[in-house]
């Protein structure tokens, strides 16, 4: 017996929901305009990963051949690696790990690995999924280099736990697209220079702020004029939930394909 199909269906549904939220974020933020384009790459990556993972989990949701997804995620990995290098230049390994783009680099690289390391159906009835494009419905997909899969699982879980622990509104870390995080004047005045971690490396900013300033910084931009859908889709809590769901699902997929 393998993993019941309904469990894979649930994970696939969650990934489709993440993809839908990401698409909604891109739409309400008008990501194709200059004002809405900031961090649109992250929302696009969530959208593509959601679709790709749903297709891996459930064969009928498969959209592109594996080689096409490999190319997509290779490009995405290269892009986030460049973004991370740019934002953490001179900051050392710590800045790299804390960087705004670090979790997205890990997510993209894990996706690339999953598509590139498919070893085909296992004969021993081990772990795996039947939904990979090109895979036989009854077969179990496994991965080459399981040690690397385990390393990715540890990284994904580490970022998931860190994301969960992090305040959803404190420092703009969960900003994903469109709405620019803009702390109010006093918060900026007391926050000092931005850390080397870039826009997402806000740990240091919040840590050195007085509590009153932290409370002000925790208030997002005025939202009174925003439509409800926009408020909901661009809320840091929604971004955080999507990222946690994606991290857990990706770790789940890697583990069952070892």
């Amino acid at each position: 017996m393998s993993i019941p199909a309904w469990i894979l269906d649930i994970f696939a549904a969650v990934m489709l929901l993440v993809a839908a939220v990401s698409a909604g974020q891109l739409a309400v933020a008008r990501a194709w305009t200059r004002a809405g384009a900031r961090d649109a790459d992250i929302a696009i990556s969530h959208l593509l990963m959601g679709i790709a993972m749903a297709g891996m989990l459930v064969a009928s949701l498969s959209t592109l051949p594996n080689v096409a997804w490999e190319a997509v995620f290779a490009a995405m990995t290269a892009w986030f690696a460049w973004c991370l290098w740019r934002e953490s230049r001179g900051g050392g390994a710590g800045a790299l790990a804390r960087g705004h783009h670090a979790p997205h680099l890990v997510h993209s690289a894990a996706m690339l690995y999953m598509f590139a390391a498919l070893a085909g159906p296992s004969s021993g009835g081990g772990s795996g999924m039947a939904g990979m494009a090109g895979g036989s419905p009854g077969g179990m997909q496994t991965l080459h280099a399981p040690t690397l899969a385990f390393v990715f699982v540890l990284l994904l879980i580490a970022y998931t736990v860190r994301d969960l622990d992090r305040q959803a509104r404190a420092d703009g870390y969960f900003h994903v697209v469109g709405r620019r995080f803009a702390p109010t004047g006093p918060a900026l005045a007391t926050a000092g220079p931005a850390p080397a971690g870039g826009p997402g490396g806000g740990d240091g900013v919040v840590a050195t702020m007085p509590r009153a300033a932290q409370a002000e910084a925790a208030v997002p931009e005025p939202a009174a004029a925003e439509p409800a859908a926009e408020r909901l889709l661009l809320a840091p809590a929604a971004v955080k939930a999507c990222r946690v769901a994606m991290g857990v699902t990706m770790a789940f997929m890697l583990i069952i394909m070892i």
Partner: protein
Amino acid sequence: MSDIALERNRTGWRDRLGVAGSVSAGLDARRVLQLILAAIWLLDGVLQYQSFMFTKAFTQMIGATSSGNPGVVARPINWNATVVQHHLVLVNTIFATIQLLIGLGIAWRPTVRLALAASIAWALGVWWFGEGLGGVLSGAASPLNGAPGAVIIYALLAVLLWPSDRITASGAPAPFVAARAVGAGVARGLWLVLWGSLAYFALTPASRAPTAVHDMVAGMASGEPGWLAALDRHAAALAGHSGLAASVVLAVALAVIALGVFLPPPAAKATLILALVVAAVIWVIGEGFGTILTGGGTDPNSGPLLALLALAYWPLVPAAAPQRQILLTGQHTEGTPA
């Protein structure tokens, strides 16, 4: 009601839920260790979803832990194995989801207390009904195979990392993270019992037999990736027929670790480093990373938990730690004048 009274009520409510620390994004040492514990629970939950766990092999694995245990312990284990076998998919999905939720709950500050409490209850249940008390009563326990049961260390960590601070009579800060919730004396006692029992298990007849270490390590190679299988084979060859000598060396190291937390900080640090090294050796050589890489591991086993425990006993710098705490969180902590 005055504003001050309202604020007090709010603070009390937030304290009870464990939310108070979420005012800022600051992390203290205990929170970092809680997050590592959350990560291990999360990994545990994900592992429980593997296809192996949805097969009869899983129920056989549970049933096998009753072997050698007294009847009063074994009967509930067999009952549990039967229940799991009859409702395998449903029960295993519930098991996996509970573990996943415990991990997520510890990582999310508003639910940290609830999740830690749930983890204690869950761990105690699994220790008995799923791990046969870790083989402690059956004579099969060995530090190399996860004694005294990895899951009981989850419960111990939940107690030691509980988000409360025990105020000492002298007002002195806790000497290490594990002492913050239960006090230094109790924390040291628990450490002594755990590592002392590991030293004892290293010397039981089953562990000190001439080929015991060899057989245990060599047996781990099956199904592992090439590099790990080769490492296991080398380690097994090294142990050869010198099981007794290997067991004695291991027992001495474990006894030194057990006593280490009673020593002055520099010596305590040295024994904690030894504990980290022993935990790493146990995890890699003895446990093969919890056999996760074979696709059949139910949990990461005891190695990472022993290492996490060692970190919780790392001596804190008396003055610097609370100062940094205030800087990061804006809150006073144990031992800091309010």
